[in-house]
């Protein structure tokens, strides 16, 4: 089957004297490489400059709150079931009277933990969630960890802060996918 028309038929015909002298071919090759020498390099200096990875990049998890600031998660456990890496674990609890402004549903996750060492950032938890509670944000990565006790992210680090709400925008407004905000610099 022919996929492209760039394929070339090879022939093992005897080389002519000009080809046996190698020099024309050598000079041709040198001309090609020297053109690359002066070409603009496509390298992105990674930790200093970050590339925008698109609105569907799967980065740091976030447990969303709804418009009134109530946690959306109802601790149904579907994300944990869907997770191929078995990274999610949770403890469910019943919503008490007076907590209606905190939790949207009558049952909520008292503990919700993601083991970032196990997580493979596949995004299946996001797909499984019936309450639109868990998302993988496209603008933030899980930072590098050095200690084993740093790898389990609890609710304190997963639940969305009210002053730092996450909206997934498809526009190109977000130009970089930073890991740590301090290192952010304008990228192309």
């Amino acid at each position, binding site marked *: 089957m022919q996929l492209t028309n760039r394929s070339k*038929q090879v022939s093992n015909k005897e080389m002519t*004297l*000009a080809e046996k002298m190698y020099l024309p071919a050598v000079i041709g090759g040198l001309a090609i*490489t*020297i053109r690359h*020498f002066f070409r603009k390099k496509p390298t992105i200096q990674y930790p200093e400059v970050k590339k925008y990875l698109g609105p569907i990049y799967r980065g740091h998890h976030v447990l969303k709150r709804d418009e009134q600031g109530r946690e959306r998660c109802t601790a149904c456990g579907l994300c944990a079931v869907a997770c191929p890496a078995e990274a999610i674990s949770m403890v469910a609890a019943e919503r008490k009277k007076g907590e209606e402004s905190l939790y949207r549903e009558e049952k909520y996750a008292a503990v919700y933990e993601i083991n970032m060492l196990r997580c493979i950032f596949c995004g299946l938890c996001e797909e499984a969630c019936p309450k639109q509670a868990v998302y993988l944000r496209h603008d933030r990565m899980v930072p590098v960890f050095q200690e084993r006790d740093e790898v389990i992210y609890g609710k304190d680090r997963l639940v969305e802060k009210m002053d730092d709400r996450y909206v997934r925008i498809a526009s190109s407004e977000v130009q970089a996918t930073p890991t740590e905000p301090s290192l952010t610099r304008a990228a192309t």
Partner: protein
Amino acid sequence: MDLTILSTKGIIILVVFGITLLIAMYSTYAERKVAAFLQDRIGPNRAGPWGLLQPVADAGKMFFKEDFIPSQASKWLFILGPCLAILTALMSSAVIPFGDTIRFSWDSKNYEVAVQAIEINIGVLYIFGVVSLGVYGIMVGGWASNNKFSLLGAIRAASQNISYEIALGLSLIAILMMTGSLSLRAIIDEQASFFEWNVFTQPLGFIIFLTCAFAECNRTPFDLPECETELVGGYHTEYSSMKLGFYLFAEYINMFVSSAFISALYFGGFHYPFMDLVSGALENSLGAVAGHNVATLIGVVVFFGKIFFFIFFFMWVRWTLPRFRYDQLMNLGWKTFIPLSILNVVITGAGLLFNFKYSTWLIAIVMIVLAVMSSARAPKRTVVPQQTV
């Protein structure tokens, strides 16, 4: 020779030694940068500004690695190998004339000292002798490792070097015939005017010499002694730490010396076009002593420019051409270069009989005509487009 000349010579020797080491050190950096740029990358840029401290970091790494000697290796020869390699590499830069003379007066006496570590009238022979000693470093190291890959690599290196040394020497003979001297300084002075540079009088000899220099330095396309797919690391398979570093370092020093040698033999050394006008004007305006010294300095800078170009050329070729197969290498050396260089010697001699320096262009022209004819007569290569099934 009195004390002043001796101490000036001492200073020059030290400076040449230091410069050789420095250039070899930064050749490793330049190699990586050039490789990166030719492959659309950026190369090392983390250690220091533009990665300039990278060689220092590499050397530090080399020193702190475990210095391992295989238990079955013959210990002294194992240590002797890299020592020989670096010793011979360092010795060869001693006779290269980096510039004209410097004049100074001391104790109300006038001196004129050549910018060259040692001036000997058989400089070319000296370099040849020392360079052929260099193969002992590889041979001894490869043999002492007690490892068949090392031995095979060393044998390859030795046979390759010996084969190409013949063509190298023969292409040089043509130059020696034209100059009538074995002194590098005399050869350089012979090329004072631009169109008498040996690259113009000896185009074929230059190409042969350049190719053989690649083979002598074990550089791509002739880097057969080390070959991951066939020989693991070649002759330095068993080496680690700074012993390996010495081998690699010797290779870069050899590259520097070869570049210097090529620019001295074929590109007029420290001469550049309109040199007489420049030095005359400088001596008129600055006086005979200062003007002469400044002119010498310009010559040295020009010479180093040529050397750097050739080092770059070595790298440029390395990252362009694929390597030869071993039988192709030997065919090229024995069946092409040796006959061609003998022909070159004969034609040069015939030309010199009639006092005509450019006689070897004859071979070049004949070869170009033959090549054009052969490619015109060759049947057109028919490329059948692949059938779609």
